[in-house]
C-alpha cells in the first residue's frame, strides 16, 4: 500500500540536481562505507583488476584505455593510454605509478571527495596502471590538509594488502605492486608533475625542465606514470566494461564524464558528475538550481588559477576540453565557481593572481616577479590608481610570463587576467577611466552621496560618521566630504530616510 505522505517526496530522478548527472567515477557515492573493502567488492570492485591481471596482457590494457578516449582529469587532458604506452616502452626494471592528489585550486574538492568516499576505486586504477607499464611500487601524493581522505586511504590500503589486492602475488597471479601515501605540505606548485616528484624525493618542490618527460625519467630518474585521482578512479570501469562503453558518452574528442566541484553563487553547492559536452547552462541552472536571490549570472570560473571566466553569452557552450579552451578557460581539474552580478571582475582577477604570486616557487623570474607586478597593477586598478595603458601592459606581461615560465603554474597564471579582459574589458575601463566599480565591490572607488530631496537634516549621519565627513546644518540637507570619507557605509546603514546612496 502506498503511504499517504510518501508521494509528496520527490524521487532522486525527479530532482534536477541528481537527474542530470551520470555517475561513473562517483558511482559508489553515498552507498558504500569507504572503510569496508567488502562493500566496494560487492559493487563489482576489483573485478576490473581481476580482468586486467588474468585475461589481458599489459599491451591490451593500454590499448583498451587508449581506445576509451580517457584524457587526464588533472587539467591538461593528455590521453591517458598514450602516457601509459610511452612509459611501458621505457626501458628499466624499476618504474613508478604516482597518483596526484595534490588538489590545490581554490574552490576545488573533487579529489578529496573521491578519496573519502571511494578510496578503493583509486587503488584499483593504480594497480591496473602498474600492470600496464610494469611498475611494482607507487605513491599517492596527497596534501596533509586532507586528513579524512588520508585516513580513509590508509584504511583502504591496509585492507587491500590484507586481501592480497596490494603487495606480493596479487589475486594469486604472481604480480606484485605496493604503494604508500606521501603527504605534501600544501604547496600549490607540487601539483605540477616534476615538482611533485622532486617533493617525494625529499627535496624542495620545484619543477624541472621537460624533456625528459616522467615517462622516460620521472621519480628518482626512473620511468613513471603520474595521473590524477579522477583519472585512476575511471580506469577499472573502462577495463571491466570496455572502451566502447566508456566512449559512448561525451563529445568527439572528450569522452566519458567529468566531475565538477560546483561552488560560489549557486543554490546547490556540491559535487557533480556530468557527461562531457553538457552545457554550462545545464550545470548552473538545472543541476546547480540557479543563482540565489534571483541575481543574474555573471560568469563561471573554470580551472582555478590556471583557468578563466566564461561569461553569460557562452552559457550554452558545451563543456569539453576543446570548447572550454577556445573560450579562454581550461577544463582544469574540475573547479567550477559561479559568480553573480555582484562580483567585481577586476577583484576576481586580482584574487587569482594574488594566489599565483603567493604560490610561485620562485625559480623562474618571469613568474616570480611578473605575477607580483601584475598583482600590483590590479590592486592599483581596484584602488582607483589605474592608469591608461594598464590593460595593455597586463596583456603584454601575460604573454611574456606564459612564454618564459618553466612549468604550468607560470604558463597559466595570467589566464584569469586575460580571460577577464577578453570578456569584461569595459569593467576594467570603468575602474581606470571613470574611477568607478560597476559591481560596487572596490571600496576605494565607492562614493557615498546624499540625496538632498530625501534628506530631512535629522543629523544621524553626522553623529555616526567616525571621520566627521558627513555634516550639515540641522534640518538642512547634509553633505559627505569625499576627501575625509573612509567609505565605511555606516551613514547609509543608519539613515532612516534612505537619503544616502552609494555608487
Amino acid at each position, binding site marked *: 500500500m502506498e503511504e499517504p505522505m510518501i508521494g509528496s*517526496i*520527490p524521487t532522486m530522478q525527479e530532482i534536477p540536481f541528481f537527474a542530470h548527472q551520470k*555517475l561513473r567515477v*562517483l558511482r559508489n557515492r553515498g552507498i558504500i562505507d*569507504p572503510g569496508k573493502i*567488502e562493500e566496494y567488492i*560487492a559493487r563489482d570492485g576489483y573485478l576490473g583488476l581481476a580482468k586486467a591481471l588474468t585475461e589481458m596482457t599489459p599491451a591490451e590494457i593500454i590499448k583498451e584505455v587508449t581506445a576509451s578516449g580517457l584524457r587526464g582529469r588533472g587539467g591538461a587532458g593528455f590521453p591517458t593510454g598514450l602516457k601509459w604506452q610511452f612509459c611501458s616502452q621505457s626501458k628499466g626494471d624499476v618504474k613508478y605509478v604516482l597518483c596526484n592528489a595534490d588538489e590545490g585550486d581554490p574552490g576545488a574538492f573533487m579529489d578529496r571527495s573521491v578519496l573519502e568516499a571511494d578510496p578503493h576505486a583509486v587503488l584499483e586504477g593504480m594497480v591496473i596502471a602498474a600492470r600496464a607499464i610494469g611498475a611494482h611500487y607507487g605513491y599517492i601524493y596527497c596534501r596533509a590538509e586532507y586528513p579524512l*581522505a588520508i585516513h580513509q586511504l590508509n584504511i583502504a590500503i591496509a585492507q587491500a594488502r590484507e586481501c592480497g589486492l596490494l603487495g606480493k602475488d596479487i589475486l*594469486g597471479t604472481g604480480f606484485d605492486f605496493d604503494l604508500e601515501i606521501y603527504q605534501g605540505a600544501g604547496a600549490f606548485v607540487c601539483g605540477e608533475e616534476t615538482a611533485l616528484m622532486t617533493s617525494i624525493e625529499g627535496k624542495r618542490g620545484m619543477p624541472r625542465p621537460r624533456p625528459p618527460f616522467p615517462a622516460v625519467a620521472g621519480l628518482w630518474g626512473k620511468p613513471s606514470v603520474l595521473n590524477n585521482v579522477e583519472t585512476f578512479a575511471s580506469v577499472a570501469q573502462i577495463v571491466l566494461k570496455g572502451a566502447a562503453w566508456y566512449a559512448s558518452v561525451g563529445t568527439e574528442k572528450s569522452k566519458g564524464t567529468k566531475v565538477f566541484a560546483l561552488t560560489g553563487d549557486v543554490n546547490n553547492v556540491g559535487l557533480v558528475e556530468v557527461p562531457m559536452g553538457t552545457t554550462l547552462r545545464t550545470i548552473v541552472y538545472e543541476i546547480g538550481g540557479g543563482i540565489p536571490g534571483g541575481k543574474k549570472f555573471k560568469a563561471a570560473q573554470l580551472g582555478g588559477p590556471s583557468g578563466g571566466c566564461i561569461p553569460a553569452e557562452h552559457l550554452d557552450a558545451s563543456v569539453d576540453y576543446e570548447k572550454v579552451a577556445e573560450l579562454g578557460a581550461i577544463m582544469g581539474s574540475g573547479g567550477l565557481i559561479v559568480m553573480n552580478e555582484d562580483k567585481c571582475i577586476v577583484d576576481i582577477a586580482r584574487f587569482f593572481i594574488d594566489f599565483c604570486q603567493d604560490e610561485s616557487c620562485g625559480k623562474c623570474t618571469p613568474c616570480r616577479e611578473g605575477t607580483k607586478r601584475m598583482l600590483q597593477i590590479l590592486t592599483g586598478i581596484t584602488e582607483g590608481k589605474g592608469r591608461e595603458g594598464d590593460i595593455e601592459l597586463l596583456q603584454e606581461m601575460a604573454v611574456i610570463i606564459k612564454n618564459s615560465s618553466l612549468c604550468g603554474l607560470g604558463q597559466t597564471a595570467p589566464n584569469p587576467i586575460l580571460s577577464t579582459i577578453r570578456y569584461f574589458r569595459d569593467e576594467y575601463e570603468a575602474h581606470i577611466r571613470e574611477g568607478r566599480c560597476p559591481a560596487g565591490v572596490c571600496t576605494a572607488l565607492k562614493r557615498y552621496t546624499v540625496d538632498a530631496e530625501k534628506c530631512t537634516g535629522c543629523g544621524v549621519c553626522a553623529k555616526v560618521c567616525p571621520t566627521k565627513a558627513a555634516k550639515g546644518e540641522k534640518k538642512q540637507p547634509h553633505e559627505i566630504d569625499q576627501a575625509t570619507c573612509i567609505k565605511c557605509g555606516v551613514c547609509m546603514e543608519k539613515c532612516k530616510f534612505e537619503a544616502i546612496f552609494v555608487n
Partner: protein
Amino acid sequence: MAKLTKEDLKKIKDKVLAKSALKEEGPRARVTVHMGTCGIASGAKEVMSALMAEIADAGIRDVAVTTSGCMGMCSREPLVTVECLGREPIKYERMDAAKMKRVFQEHVLKGEIQTPFALARGEESSE
C-alpha cells in the same frame, strides 16, 4: 581476511549482498549517516552521536547503522538515509541531533516518514 582470488570476489559480493539485505529477522532498518568532510563540517558527528544514543536508549538491536561519504549535495548536509524493510529509502537533509531523534522515533521505530526534513526518496541511478 585471507588473500583473495578472482573467484573469491564473486563470493564476497554475494555474501555482502545477502548479509546487508533487510529482512524480518533483522536488520529491519538501516540508517546511513553521510560523513564526508562536508557532512562532518555541517554537524554529521553530532547527528551520529544522537542516533547512537537513541538506539542505546531504545535498547534495540535490529537497526543497522552505517556511514558513507558525500552523496553530492554538500549544501544540504548533514544528510541521512533511512531504509526500512520493504520500503523506499528516504534521504533526509539538513539534519541535526533533534531532527535525528525525531526521525529515529517516528520513522525508524514507527514507520512514519518525516516529510518536513525529507529531500528525496529512492536511489540514484547508476550504470
